C-alpha cells in the first residue's frame, strides 16, 4: 500500500518528511487490532501543527520528532550520540567542592533524598545457606599492613614533604587497601573475584533538570532547559557484571522532602561552560562489567578537616562528604542506567544501585545510592513521584 511504503521509507531515511506523524496516525488504527476495527479509518491526513513555523506547537512537534529518533535508535551508542551531540552552555558540577551547603544544592539538581544511616538489610532468604563468619581480624591485619607499608615501611627516594604527603602516601595506601580487601573478601562474594578494578578512570554524566528564562542574547526571554555535567575521577572503583540487588522497591515513597532552592545555580557558585557532553562509567558500552559496585574517593588537601576548621566551617565537614557522595554516585548510577538504554523519556524499569566510600585518609564515610528515576527534565518530571535515595553515615575514623 502506498501509505505503508511511505512509512517504511521515511523510517529508514530518518527523513525530514513532513508526513511522519501523518503516516503514523494513518498506520496506527490498522495496527491496533480488532477492538478499533469499528472506528472509521480517516480518509485525509490528520491536522497537526507545522514543523517549521515559529510557534510553540511547531517547537513541540520538532522536539517530539527528535525524541522519536532517540527511541528508534538501534544501539545504545547511537542513542547516547543523539542525546549528547548538540553542545550548549551547561553548568559544570564538581563533586568535590568547597561551596557552602553544596549537598542541599546537589540534592535539588539530582532529585535525591538523603537519609542518614545505612539502608535496611535485605530480608534473610531461608533457602540459601548462612554465609561464613566474617574474619574481622584478618581484614584488620590487612588494613594495618597497608597503612604501615605506605606510611612507614616503604623506602622512598626522597623524604616526602608535608604538602605532598596526600598524593604520595595516602593515595597508594587507598589503592593497596582496596586491592587487598577485594582479594580477602572475594571468598564471601564470588562476584568480587571476577570484578574489574579501575584506578583513577574518569566518570562523566550529562543531564537536564529544570528550566530558566534566558536573560540576555538573541534568545532573550525564551525558556531554556538547564544542563549539567559532572566530570568525576574516583580514586578506585569496582565494576561487576551483575547488578547489585535493590535496597528498597522502585516506587518506594520517602516522606522526606527534597530541598528546593529559590535562586539560580549560579549562586552556589556554579559556572557555565560549553564543551563535549560525555556519558561514561569508566569503560565503554561494550564491556560486560557494566554495573557498578563501589567507588572510593579521596578528598583533596584543599578540603581537609584542618583547613575547614581554620575557616570556621566546622559544619561543612560533613557537607563535603555528602555532596561528593551524592554527585559522584548519581553520575555513576545515571551513566550505568544510560548504558542500558534508559533516558529521561524512557525511565528506568529497575533501580540502579551503587555504593561509595569517601575518605580523607583518616576519616571514612560510607554511602549507598539507589537511582529510581532518570526523568529529571521539566517535561518528564511533571507527574513523576519517584525520587532517588542516598543513604550515608557520619564519618568514622
Amino acid at each position: 500500500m502506498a501509505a505503508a511504503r511511505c512509512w517504511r521509507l521515511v523510517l529508514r531515511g530518518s527523513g525530514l518528511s513532513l508526513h511522519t506523524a501523518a503516516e503514523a496516525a494513518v498506520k496506527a488504527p490498522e495496527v491496533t487490532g480488532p477492538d478499533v476495527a469499528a472506528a472509521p479509518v480517516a480518509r485525509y491526513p490528520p491536522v497537526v501543527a507545522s514543523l517549521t513555523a515559529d510557534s510553540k506547537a511547531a517547537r513541540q512537534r520538532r522536539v517530539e520528532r527528535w525524541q522519536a529518533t532517540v527511541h528508534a535508535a538501534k544501539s545504545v551508542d547511537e542513542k547516547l550520540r543523539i542525546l549528547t551531540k548538540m553542545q550548549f552552555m551547561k553548568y559544570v558540577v564538581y563533586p568535590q567542592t568547597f561551596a557552602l551547603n553544596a549537598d542541599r544544592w546537589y540534592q535539588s539538581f539530582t532529585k535525591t533524598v538523603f537519609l542518614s544511616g545505612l539502608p535496611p538489610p535485605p530480608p534473610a532468604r531461608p533457602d540459601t545457606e548462612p554465609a561464613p563468619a566474617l574474619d574481622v581480624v584478618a581484614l584488620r591485619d590487612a588494613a594495618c599492613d597497608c597503612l604501615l607499608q605506605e606510611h612507614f615501611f616503604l623506602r622512598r627516594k626522597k623524604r616526602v614533604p608535608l604538602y605532598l604527603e596526600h598524593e604520595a602516601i595516602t593515595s597508594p595506601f587507598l589503592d593497596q587497601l582496596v586491592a587487598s580487601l577485594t582479594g580477602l573478601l572475594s571468598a564471601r562474594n564470588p562476584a568480587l573475584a571476577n570484578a574489574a578494578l579501575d584506578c583513577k578512570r574518569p566518570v562523566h554524566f550529562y543531564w537536564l533538570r529544570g528550566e530558566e528564562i534566558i536573560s540576555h542574547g538573541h534568545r532573550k526571554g525564551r525558556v531554556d532547559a538547564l544542563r549539567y555535567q559532572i566530570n568525576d575521577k574516583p580514586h578506585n572503583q569496582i565494576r561487576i557484571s551483575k547488578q547489585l540487588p535493590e535496597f528498597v522497591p522502585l516506587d518506594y515513597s520517602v516522606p522526606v522532602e527534597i530541598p528546593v532552592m529559590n535562586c539560580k545555580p549560579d549562586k552556589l557558585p556554579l559556572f557555565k561552560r560549553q564543551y563535549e557532553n560525555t556519558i561514561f562509567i569508566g569503560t565503554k558500552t561494550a564491556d560486560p562489567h557494566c554495573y557498578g559496585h563501589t567507588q572510593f574517593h579521596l578528598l583533596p588537601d584543599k578540603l581537609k578537616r584542618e583547613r575547614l576548621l581554620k575557616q570556621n566551617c566546622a559544619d561543612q565537614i560533613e557537607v563535603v562528604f555528602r555532596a561528593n557522595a551524592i554527585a559522584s554516585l548519581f553520575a555513576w548510577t545515571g551513566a550505568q542506567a544510560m548504558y542500558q538504554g534508559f533516558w529521561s523519556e524512557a525511565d528506568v524499569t529497575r533501580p540502579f544501585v551503587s555504593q561509595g566510600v569517601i575518605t580523607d585518609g583518616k576519616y571514612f564515610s560510607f554511602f549507598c545510592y539507589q537511582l529510581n528515576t532518570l526523568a529529571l527534565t521539566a517535561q518528564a518530571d511533571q507527574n513523576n513521584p519517584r525520587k532517588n535515595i542516598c543513604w550515608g553515615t557520619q564519618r568514622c575514623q
Partner: protein
Amino acid sequence: MALASRSARLALARLGRLGLGSCGAPRRGAYEWGVRSTRKPEPPPPDRVYEIPGLEPITYAGKMHFMPGLARPVFPPWDPDWTPPKFRRLPPLHEHPLYKDQACYVFHQRCRLLEGVKQALWLTKTKLIEGLPEKVLSLADDPRNHIENQDECVLNVIFHARLWHSTEDIPKRETYCPVIVDSLIQLCKSQILKHPSLARRICAQNNMLSTTWNRGFREGYPYPYPHTLYLLESANLRPHRFQPDQLRAKMILFAFGNALAQARLLYGNDTKVLEQPVVVQSVGTDGRVFQFLVLQLNTTDLASDEGVKNLVWIDSDQLLYEHFWCLPVVRRKAVVEPVGPTGFQPETFRKFLALYLHGAV
C-alpha cells in the same frame, strides 16, 4: 673651555665624538667636524700600592673614604661564611667527605646496557637457560590451575586496556600499559578462592631499592620476600622505550638486586655460597610483548669468576596479541578487520598465571 678638570673635558669630548650630547642623546647639530680616529683612548693609570720596606704606610682606611694624598690600603681578603647556592662551587672530587678510591657504578631504572643480556649476565655471574623452569611450565599446563573462560577473560582484559577504558578512540601506551598489567594481576588474583595462600601477598609500587649497602624495606615488614617484579615500558614514543634486549638486561639486574638484598637480610653481608638459594621472578612488558624471567641466586661471591654460578631462566618475546585494531578496517564498504586483537596467543597468559601462582600452589 669653561670646564677646568681635564678628565671631565675628556669625557665630554668622548661623548661629543660619539655624536651624543651631555645626557647621552644626540645633539641637535649632531654632526661633528674633525678627524675621526680609531685609536682607543689610553687606559686610566692603575692605582698602585707602594710597599717601601721599613716604612708604615699611612692609608685612608680609617677615614672610610678616598683621600688624595694618602696611600691606598690593602685589606685582608674577605671570606664570606655563606654563599648563595647559585654561586657555590663544588670542591674537587677527591676532597669530598664520602670519597672512596674504588669507583662504584650505579644502575637505575633508565640505564640501558649496551651489550644487553650478555653484559647483565657477566655483571651478575649468571648462567642463562632458555625457557622457563619445568616447575613453572607444569603449573602453566596444569588444567586445574586454569580460570574458567580464561581465554574469554583475557580477551576482555585486552579489549578493556586497548579500547574501552578511556573516552578517546585510541588510548595511548602510557595509559594502556599499566591498565593491562593491573587487570592481568587482578585476573590472576581471582584464583584466591582456590588457593587461599595468595591472600598473603601485597603489592608495593614505585619503591626504591638500593642494595649493596641497604635493605629494601625496614625491619619488621610482614611481607619481606620479593616475589615478582613487574617492569613496564610505557613511553609513547618508540625511542623512549627500551629495546627487548635492554629490557631483559634491566630485568636481570633488578631481580638480582632484589635477590641480593634478600640474601644480605637472611645471611648477612659476607660473600659466600648460599645453602638455600633465593628465587625472584620478573615480568617485563610494553603492553603487548612480554618477557618472563626467573632468577635463582646461588652465591653472593661475585668477585671470582669460578665456582657456583647463579642461574636465570628467560622466556623472551612472548606476544600476547599481534596487533589491536581500535577502529574497524573497511575496504570498499566491507569490514576487512573487525575491532579487536589479531593473533591472540593464550599461551602467554598461561605463563603469566603460572609465574603468579608459583610458590602458592
